[in-house]
């Protein structure tokens, strides 16, 4: 297991806690009415408030508060009836106010927990320490000019949820599973689009090592880890670095380190020298945020079924395995698609067609489920034709390929191409008799004990009927006649 490192002096356990910044899905910023949508002309989505012009004041976005509460509920966490916005003071060109409005001593969401899925179908519970609301910074571009940096404040002031985990994660795989699960939950809730490439979700990873079961070691915080893969690589690199230092007789200093994706290493961030002195204090421009319990309860009423609940229900109600259930619930749209295919039909068959056929071919074409040429109703129609013996499973695959290419209903394709299965026993018996008569040598060999030849006869019959003969009837007739 990669949660243990073998060093010269023995085994080391990797201990990880994560701080995930997730941009809140909302129309406008946390404290201003400017657009929070990604991508636009520089400084075009900036209000006087976002640019921290003299005399400007923050006003809190109600929907962002609702989204944070919804997320907290989705993380099985306690919602704090009173929370306080504080200022985190530091200077940086993309931080216009000279402070970030964040929450510190009194976050909106407290302790919670989620389950992560491990390779062998195991699950592990990971504690959530807190979730708080805060402003995003703007963006500095350092590569446009030899001696200048360019600043764009479009993102400045967008609402972020900082979600902090307990140091419950062990090794890169668990960290990756945590990040994936968290992303899945946020997407289910509709509170963050989870798009790591566009920076809607960013992870800071706290890594330390210790002798298994020993006291926690000193941690380093790694910033700028912007994909699940990078998280894994950064943890592997950083934990090995720490073990090497300790085994060489050194000590780990608590510090902020930057993940360099091109070099594949972490390095110390000297620019964070003031980092330990943010001078937090309650923002005097904002009063404490007080939430009504009845309102919190009403948000709870509107929560969708979450991934873990859905997975357990799929296993129980549909009799699916943990793995298939896990794949089906990975995206809400996928689970919904499956459920509408499975409605009133054989669930395992539905799961099989969605997972192995439809997702397979979509994946090959680099398409998402919402771009599928085959609707859930159409896929259900195809399954119905198999179940009522209109077509065989084999023909169904051809029909499926046709549906994928043309978006036509299965029944229509079967009709147009005359693929309806022959179930007339008399007609099939005639063909069986012809085949037996035409192959006396093989008949003799079969009867002499060459059982394998049975398939040859089936094949011949199917060939004669253009594949349309009901395979069960063919089998039964051949068995009877070849005795």
């Amino acid at each position, binding site marked *: 297991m990669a949660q243990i490192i073998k060093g010269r002096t023995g085994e080391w356990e990797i201990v990880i806690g994560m701080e995930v910044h997730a941009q809140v899905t*909302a*129309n*406008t910023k946390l404290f*201003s*009415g*400017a*657009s929070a949508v990604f991508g636009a*002309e*520089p*400084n*075009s*989505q*900036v*209000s*006087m*408030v*976002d*640019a921290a012009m003299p005399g400007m004041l923050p*006003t*809190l*976005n*109600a*929907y*962002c*508060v609702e989204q944070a509460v919804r997320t907290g509920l989705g993380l099985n966490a306690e919602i704090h009836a009173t929370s*306080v916005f504080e200022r985190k003071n530091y*200077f*940086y*060109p993309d931080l216009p106010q000279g402070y970030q409005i964040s929450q510190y001593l009194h976050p909106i969401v407290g302790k919670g927990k989620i389950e992560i899925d491990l390779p062998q179908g195991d699950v592990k519970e990971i504690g959530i320490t807190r979730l708080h609301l805060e402003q995003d910074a703007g963006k*500095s*571009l*350092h590569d*446009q*000019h*030899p*001696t*200048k*940096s*360019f*600043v*764009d*404040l479009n993102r400045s002031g967008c609402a972020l949820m900082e979600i902090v985990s307990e140091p419950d994660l062990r090794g890169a795989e668990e960290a990756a599973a945590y990040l994936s699960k968290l992303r899945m939950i946020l997407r289910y809730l509709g509170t963050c689009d989870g798009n790591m490439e566009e920076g809607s979700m960013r992870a800071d990873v706290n890594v330390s090592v210790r002798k298994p079961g020993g006291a926690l070691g000193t941690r380093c915080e790694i910033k700028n880890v912007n994909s699940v893969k990078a998280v894994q690589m950064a943890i592997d690199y950083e934990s090995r670095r720490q073990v090497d230092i300790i085994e060489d007789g050194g000590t780990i200093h608590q510090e902020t380190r*930057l993940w360099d994706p091109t070099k594949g290493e972490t390095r110390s*961030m000297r*620019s964070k020298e*003031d980092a330990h*002195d943010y*001078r937090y204090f*309650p923002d*005097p421009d*904002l*009063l*404490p*945020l*007080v939430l009504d319990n009845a309102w919190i309860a009403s948000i709870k009423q509107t929560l969708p079924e979450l991934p873990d609940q859905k997975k357990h229900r799929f296993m129980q109600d549909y009799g699916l395995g943990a793995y298939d259930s896990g794949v089906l619930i990975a995206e809400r749209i996928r689970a919904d698609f499956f459920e509408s295919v499975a409605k009133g039909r054989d669930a395992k068959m539905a799961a099989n067609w969605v997972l192995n056929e439809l997702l397979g071919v979509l994946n090959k074409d680099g398409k998402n489920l919402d771009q599928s040429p085959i609707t859930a109703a159409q896929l259900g129609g195809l399954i119905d034709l198999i179940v009522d013996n209109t077509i065989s499973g084999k023909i169904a695959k051809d029909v499926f390929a046709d549906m994928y290419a043309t978006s036509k209903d299965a029944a229509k394709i079967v009709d147009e191409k005359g693929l309806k299965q022959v179930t007339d026993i008399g007609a099939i018996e005639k063909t069986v008799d012809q085949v037996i008569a035409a192959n006396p040598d093989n008949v003799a060999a079969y009867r002499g004990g060459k059982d394998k030849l049975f398939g040859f006869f089936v094949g011949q019959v199917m060939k004669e009927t253009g594949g349309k003969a009901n395979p069960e009837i063919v089998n039964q007739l051949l068995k009877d006649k070849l005795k």
Partner: protein
Amino acid sequence: MTTIISCIPPALPSTLPVMDTKTVKKVASLARLSMTDQELESYRPKLENILKFVEQLSEVNTDGVEPLSNVVDIALTLRTDTLTDGDLQQKILANAPESTEGFFVVPKVVE
């Protein structure tokens, strides 16, 4: 002209560290204020006096007193999530010491 000499009880013996030049220097750096050694020296006693002056608060027993951040007796009002602002690029940049192609420009930040 009469000036009030003191209407404040004398401060208790100091429990907090005194302002030394090194501390003044650190605070100036944290506040991003450039200061010559001479300036640091002239600020030091003034800051120290102010800190000594405010230290008299320590004589009041405030156990169990809830800190008061803001006196206003109203609840925080929230804004609806509707687009009402932005699209002001020209105005946002109008007072900028340096800008180009819609960006603010600053001396290069080295990470």
